[in-house]
């Protein structure tokens, strides 16, 4: 993913996704990032570099993790409504924003077994704004219907659900999610709407589709400076390869 595409852009795919995700954090006061999520961590730290008042909590980080009540505190904190934005991904994501982190085929004898649902089944409902992210944008992962619902995209109206999915950022495009449907908002540089239609396994709405703005010089300078150093603290392997020079 980190290799430059043929278009010889001045930024990496990770940088473009991180910048796109960071721009979705404008209304957030407290962004939390789960374990093993270097891309969201990069986005959150970039947003914080631009807006120092933003509170960023990164699980697994020694410097951006304020929790002192054990592993449960992130989850308690989310249920208290003290976290505005969280990030989730899925081995499969479908058009109703259901995500699958468990496996394909029969649950008892899976054809493919993924690592597990982690906190998704819970946080997807409780954090006001969840941003889905998935570098791979193909019909293999963006499917009509996930084979196991780790966390449901939508809920019946009477169910307690203060939060849910609001955006999906992939390696090709940015979608919004509302009323149970994805809407294509912008395509990344080098992509066309037709590319997106072809590479997306589910049906989605199209309004006025824009072009995802590439990282600005300021954004790249921050990413490759302070943000890279902060990310390296928790994700040294990611930091070593995801950023341009």
């Amino acid at each position, binding site marked *: 993913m980190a290799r430059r595409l043929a278009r010889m852009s001045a930024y990496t795919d990770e940088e473009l996704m991180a910048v796109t995700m960071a721009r979705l954090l404008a209304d957030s006061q407290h962004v939390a990032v789960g374990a093993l999520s270097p891309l969201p961590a990069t986005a959150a730290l970039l947003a914080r570099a631009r807006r120092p008042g933003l509170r960023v909590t990164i699980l697994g980080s020694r410097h951006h993790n304020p929790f002192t*009540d*054990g592993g449960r505190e992130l989850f308690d904190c989310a249920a208290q409504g003290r976290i505005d934005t969280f990030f989730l991904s899925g081995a499969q994501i479908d058009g109703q924003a259901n995500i699958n982190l*468990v496996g394909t085929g029969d649950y008892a004898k899976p054809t493919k077994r993924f690592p*597990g649902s982690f906190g998704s089944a819970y946080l997807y*409902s409780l954090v006001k704004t969840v941003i889905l992210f998935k570098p791979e944008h193909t019909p293999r992962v963006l499917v009509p219907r996930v084979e196991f619902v*780790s966390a449901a995209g939508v809920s019946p109206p009477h169910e307690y659900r203060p939060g849910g999915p609001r955006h999906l950022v992939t390696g090709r495009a940015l979608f919004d999610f509302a009323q149970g449907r994805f809407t294509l908002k912008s395509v990344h540089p080098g992509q066309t709407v037709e590319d997106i239609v072809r590479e997306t396994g589910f049906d989605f709405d199209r309004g006025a589709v824009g072009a995802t703005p590439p990282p600005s010089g300021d954004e790249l300078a921050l990413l490759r400076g302070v943000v890279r150093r902060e990310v390296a603290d928790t994700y040294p392997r990611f930091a070593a390869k995801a950023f341009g020079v």
Partner: protein
Amino acid sequence: MSTIVQTLTEFVADIVDDSRVAIPPDYSGVAMAATRALILRGARGLRLVAVPQAGFQADILIGAGCVASIETAGINLGEYGLAPRYTDAIQRGELRVIDATCPAVHAGLQAAEKGIPFMPLRGILGSDLLRVRPDWRVIDNPYGDHDPIVLIPAIRPDIALFHAACADRDGNVWVGVRRELMTMAHAAARSFVTVESVSDRNLLEDPALAAGTIPGLYIDRVCVAPGGMRPLPFGDDAGDAAALSTYARGAASPEGYAQWLAGWLA
């Protein structure tokens, strides 16, 4: 009462086969040296409870055939990728996975800690986890109006097994901010802890240290095992990235794992 035992062989002797053993995640306090001793003693049928997710320790134990089942919100090797022995064991039908979600594991342990049969938890509704976890019930919230809520039954491990920086002669164990270790110790019938060192000074007498200390009341076995979490990072020890990487590569195949294990046990 807490007993300080001299060898890891003694330490693991009472972690009998088929025990339900709670283990922490890779970023907390994993008793790796004790894991090696468990494999050396030929442990079988362990029912692991990952609090709330598993990593190297569980993958190694699964590869060595010590594990019958694992309740976990997820398992991977962090930046080193998927957990290969876990995936392989599932596909060979040799491992029972009890899929969870992180806060449900914490809630189940808190229920055990409080001596209550269950704990309600928000979220989860709509997830297929409810389909594969019939023990997670959905009731109508008695304080709501047509408001379904999930119940998580108490998780009562036989043993909590972890590594910590320090114990004292009374079996008090300092874990600092790693409070999930304290919840594990409260919830489990017995707690087995390896430590970097034993202090002659009572940890509870120091107001700063006391705040991060599990009272000896909950601790049954302590064994000094310096570097007992290696090759995982712990405290100021950054761990052994090369060794972790070697494991991840080797364990990708059964043969590679066997070779790695032979080296580790040697």
